[in-house]
């Protein structure tokens, strides 16, 4: 198959590659860019483990032809922390037990990141709706919910507080 030149914007970096046009973003991220934090759990978009953010929107990279995503900014789990500083969601998942085996965690954190960007004060129902396409076989979701709530709490503390005069 004829290869094509591709420019990808991933986690604030630009990558130039030569790849077959039928290659999925999931494979290219994992195999060509070494970004193995994006996981493959199924082969048919049924588990959400391969979720990445495309201009901030969660999408399953196992369904995305790489050549079609040269314009948008792609964020993988490796791009979530600010250097060594964990994101509030990452911190929440550590301290509230949201990551047991950790395999669904990248996809869930990215999906939740999009939710909190859209809706900083979601209800439990709204969190569950947002995460309903991400399968976890370990936790029963109770501690995942607690982890997201913890992140919300941390983000609220960081916000500038209005001071009564």
């Amino acid at each position, binding site marked *: 198959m004829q290869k094509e030149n591709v420019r990808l914007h991933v986690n604030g970096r630009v990558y130039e590659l030569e790849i077959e046009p039928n290659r999925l973003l999931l494979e290219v991220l994992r195999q060509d860019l070494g970004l193995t934090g994006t996981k493959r759990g199924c082969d048919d978009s049924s588990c959400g483990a391969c979720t990445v953010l495309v201009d901030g929107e969660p999408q399953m990279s196992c369904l995305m032809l790489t050549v079609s995503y040269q314009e948008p900014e792609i964020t993988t789990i490796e791009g979530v922390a600010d250097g060594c500083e964990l994101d509030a969601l990452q911190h929440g998942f550590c301290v509230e037990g949201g990551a047991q085996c950790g395999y669904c965690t990248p996809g869930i954190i990215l999906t939740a990141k999009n939710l909190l960007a859209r809706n900083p004060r979601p209800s439990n129902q709204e969190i569950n709706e947002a995460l309903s396409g991400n399968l976890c076989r370990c936790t*029963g979701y109770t501690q995942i919910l607690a982890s997201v709530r913890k992140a919300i709490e941390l983000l609220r503390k960081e916000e500038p507080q209005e001071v009564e005069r």
Partner: protein
Amino acid sequence: MSSFPQYSVIGARIPMVDSVDKVTGAGKYADDLTLPGMLVGKILHSPHPHARIRSIDASAAEALPGVKAVVIGRETPVKYGILPVGHDETIFAVDKVRYIGDNVAGVAATNEVIAEAALRLIRVDYETLPAHLDPEQSMRAEDHLIHQGRPHNIEREYHHHFGNLEEGFEAADYIREDRFDCAEVTHAALEPHSTLAKFDPDGKLTVWSSTQVPYYLMKTLASTLQMAEEDVRVIKPLIGGGFGGKSEVIPLELAAAVLARKAGAPVKVTYTREEVFYAHRGRPRQIVELKTGITRQGKLTAVEARIIQDGGAYCGYGVVTILYSGQLLNAMYDIPNVKFDGYRVLTNKPACGAMRGHGTVNTRFAFEQQLNRIAAVLGIDPVEIRRRNFLKPPCRTVNDLRVLSYGYPECIEKVVDRSGWKHKYGRLPYGKGIGIGGSHYVSGAANPIIRSMMPHTTVNVAIDRGGTVTIFSGAAEIGQGSDTMQVQIVAAELGRPMEQVRIIAADTGRTPVDLGSYSSRVTFMAGNAALAAAREAKRRIVAAAAEKLACSPDDLVMKNGGVYYRTDRHLALSFEDAVRLAVVRDGTLQTSGTYTTPPDSQGGKFKGAGVGPSPAYSYSAQVAEVTVDSETGQVSVDRIIAAHDCGKALNPLAVEGQVQGSVWMGLGQALQEEMIWQNGRLMNPGLLEYRSASTLESPPIETILVESNDPEGPFGAKEAGEGSLAATIPAITHAIYDAVGVWIDTLPVTPEKVLKALEEKRKSHELTSL
């Protein structure tokens, strides 16, 4: 009053020590690993449930550019299996295939596209044979048997009789018989199995694999590849969930190694999701014919169980699974007379194996459901009927299981209180219901899979001159918190902060032997070994300090970052200074701890007595509340309260996570999960079709941790990762009865079954009113 500064980490909510790697994507799972020159391995699977292989022609595949190795069965004829009594598998089929998906050949090629093309070029000439697909028919078969030496396709049968069954039933005022049928379910861990194998020029093999049992994998690689065990090293990277599905050797692990050897290059094999479903080793379909005798007052007098398990085409853990299903009828309630007839039956489907709650879950569902049915008939409160049959530990059951700690009564009381049971059971409006169930599980099998005098586990602790502690352990972290538990125990015992303790685990070339993460053994066994190693290190540090301070070691006590005088509680030496003294004295500071089960916990002498005994049992009681839509048959679970006796919650965050995960898996088995077979083909080999509950279908799970402080557990701890699963199922089916008045004895409880039961109930009412 002076007191020591407290920074004991036992009982604190501790994040997993590997959690940062997991939330940042930095952690490496098997499929994340690459090596220079690595090839892709693929496996050719059988399209037939049962067929003789007449011939295989792989020449076209071998000739395809990019193909570096093709391996077929006659090159790999050594039989293996996880149990010494069940060596009935070969890496690739030699003469017969026994299920759709059976492994026929392996290919290693420079990329996946070429590997898959090569598979299509392998010509296999099959002579198809009649397939045995239903266990009750299979066990009557005379011809075309699945394995030689297994008449009637019965892998193994057991017949146990404890006490006097006849007398037991004579003493009963009420005897009830029911048949339960529980569908086959599978682990569906989110990480598909993956193995990377590499040979060094000196002929030594290194394998990175998604395994719960690195030690058994090392042994099986050595036996099937006919190598010395010391030339095989198995390294377990992060594991994306196991639940038992990675607790025996899976064909791809061996395929990767034989392909790597033939190709002369590293080979990685990663299953597709469909291959994961066919690799299976999950919970078998189980038919339970259960007969229970009870007095008018609700005291159990006798239990008789006839159990058939649809084991699939190979033994796997099957002999253990069938024994658990009978042996653990006991150790929950006081049952004086018990009979068990168990049949593990071979069929032409993927082999079943160990899955969370191994062997106990479907029997427990049947027993608890029948107990709830009996309570309803006799008009005894279902909580009260349990109270009347509690064990009175310390005790030995009729089948010689030793029970020391027993938090089940407290679990019952806690869930009854929290749920408002008294105001709800039988009193909720039609369509709403509440139900109860109980369960238990072993804290490690008292007997190893391969009988030997070796300890079940050994943990080494090394402390460097700066005071940093390193644990070397063979125990396999699979997401359950094995590493964190050991770090916590060593940190607590040495009085060190967690950050000063690190762990190197599950590398058979670098760490001592641990038998693996199965039978919920790690906290009890590796935890005790880690504790013993830390205690020995402490003893040596104190001895060195005493020498320096010219006092007796008994005058000193070590905790919270230092060595203190016992009498006035003054700091004598900092931890670092004391460690330096010990290193100077002994040259190095390294200690070992081991764990072996006490002989009196290892069970009786009868055939099959080795499976079921454990040094300690966990207990769970649960209350579920449901809503049943009588128009659609849809059941939604509104709330589950789960109380789990874990002995001592070393890390409540982790224990709660384990209990919630178990409950959720039980919920899946109760209502949705089911492997659907048609002519030996799986109809739902995908994560959408094999339905498990999403966030929207998953109720809040409230956990209550009960601490019975087991006398032999590390700091009193017992298992937490499996024992809660089984109780969820009868609690939900009981709640369905409470909601709409029907008992469903087959799993999963689909809307169709609920509607059918409601229809039958309506018809029988119409008949009685005629």
